[in-house]
């Protein structure tokens, strides 16, 4: 029954996609009015004005571009012409570094907050104020203090990944079942061993849920951050291609961003499942 449901869902997905591509194709086939003009002028005006080609690329154009990028993702022809793979690599690198730094900070502090009602109350006002700040608002401050655009992007990723992990870790640790803690207490298990043998495994699903939210936000923010700092990265690529008026490349980048985001999310979802045990 579930198998057939999955199967039917897949069919519907494919049909929807095909319908979307078809409409897209028809809408961009090009039916704009053409005006007779001087050939010199026509060259300046481009295909849209002369042959009635749509200004929006069609699915075939995008398909060809995607294929072109897939065939050669890592070429490097100067500052403004690098392969999509290289740009993606930079973005993923920045996200990974900022995210891992956030893990290193958020999880220990989350444990502290979750285990100590005093620290929980004491740190609460700071978290409440800092959490709602848009990560990009930190950018000028980061650029001013760090003086390196790449590292500033990493810092912005760090800041935006921090809060969901911190809040979820604190919540997960604070709501570990009392009985499990009592088991450790009756066995005279010390604090450090209790953290690793009871609190961590018990809170792991909640912590990983926070990490999953964080990676999603980090991947959203990196595009905007790289548009601001420029130089390399998929965000910069999008902005650069927009300046080149290469809408095909922009659409390609949008697709790729979506796919990478999905992969990152699924990795964390898998990790969450791996540490979740039914009672």
């Amino acid at each position, binding site marked *: 029954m579930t198998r057939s449901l999955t199967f039917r869902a897949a069919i519907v997905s494919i049909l929807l996609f095909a319908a979307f591509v078809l409409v897209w194709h028809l809408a961009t086939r090009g039916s704009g009015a053409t005006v007779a003009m001087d050939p010199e002028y026509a060259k300046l005006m481009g295909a849209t004005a002369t042959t009635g080609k749509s200004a929006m690329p069609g699915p075939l154009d995008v398909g060809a571009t995607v294929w072109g990028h897939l065939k050669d993702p890592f070429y490097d022809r100067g500052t403004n012409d690098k392969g999509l793979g290289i740009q993606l690599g930079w973005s993923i690198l920045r996200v990974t570094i900022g995210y891992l730094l956030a893990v290193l900070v958020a999880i220990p502090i989350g444990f502290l907050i979750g285990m100590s009602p005093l620290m929980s109350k004491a740190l609460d006002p700071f978290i409440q104020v800092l959490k709602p700040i848009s990560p990009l608002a930190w950018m000028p401050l980061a650029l001013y203090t760090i003086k390196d655009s790449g590292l500033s992007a990493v810092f912005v990723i760090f800041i935006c990944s921090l809060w969901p992990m911190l809040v979820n870790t604190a919540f997960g640790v604070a709501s570990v079942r009392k009985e499990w803690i009592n088991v450790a207490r*009756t*066995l*005279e298990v010390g604090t450090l061993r209790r953290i690793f043998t*009871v609190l961590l495994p018990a809170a792991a699903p909640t912590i990983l849920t926070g990490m999953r939210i964080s990676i999603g936000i980090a991947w959203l923010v990196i595009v905007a951050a790289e548009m601001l700092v420029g130089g390399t990265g998929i965000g910069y690529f999008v902005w650069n291609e927009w300046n080149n008026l290469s809408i095909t490349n922009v659409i390609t980048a949008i697709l790729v961003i979506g796919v990478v985001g999905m992969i990152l999310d699924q990795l964390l979802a898998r990790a969450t499942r791996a540490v979740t045990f039914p009672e």
Partner: protein
Amino acid sequence: MTDKFISIEGISKRFPAAGGGTTTVFEDLWLGMERGTFTCVIGHSGCGKTTVLNVLAGLDRPSDGAVIVDNQSIEGPSLDRAVIFQSHALLPWLTVMGNVAYAVASKWRRWSRAQVEEHAQRFIALVGLSGAERKRPAELSGGMKQRVGIARALSIEPKILLMDEPFSALDALTRGTLQDEVRRICQETGQTVFMITHDVDEAIYLADRIVLMTNGPQAVLAEIVDNPLPADRARDDVHKHPLYYAVRNHVVDFLVTRSKSYTDADKAALDRRNPPIVRPGAPEPAIVSGESASPSWPGLSRPSTSHAG
């Protein structure tokens, strides 16, 4: 006063009440337990049994009074006192072996992994779970989970075993088997046991002494029933013993009527340090034996049905 192995000395427990003030769960509770004895506590839901057990375990502190174990006052949880929790409390991310080994490794911290597993294996076998070592709690039945909890508690070879309704979630058959196992193990190892139960038959089968608590709030320890049944009783014929129904009726009678009707005057009259010790069936409390011992012993209880067929 401290000639007993465990001595509960005037403990009380108060919780802050909803509208300010406090509610007293129980007050000025005294109870002594000798080494190697099996004590069962019976009382209605909410009278404070779990609270007493938590104090004994060191998981909770009394508002007043103290508990002395082996001439030392309880300051916190200890490996000498193992707890079998009402809801088994297994760690779901560990296997059966992992759960028991966790306890063993906590007690003997220098042991090698092989030593720990061998010791744990012995107790897993003891509760009849050999072959299920690699299973996680979610893959076990309720009875098997409870047995893992028992194996975990016994594996640290405690001096005192504290059990909070360990069998209440089980079917009658499994419960019987586990009662037998626990009784055998306790007799073999000379455990001192404190157990909470709602099951009168279970208490009579297992306990040397049955402690009766009145309804809360302000519950008191009304009396201690000294079990007159022989120590070598067996589960399949314990109910045929001439004194079985004397004890049973005494306890049921307490639960049904006397636990509620215990007035403040009765409480005031009670010598809390030395609650009355009753031995049903013995010459003294004649009310009980006179009423019920004769019709229910043995096989005379339902003469009409046996003649009809």
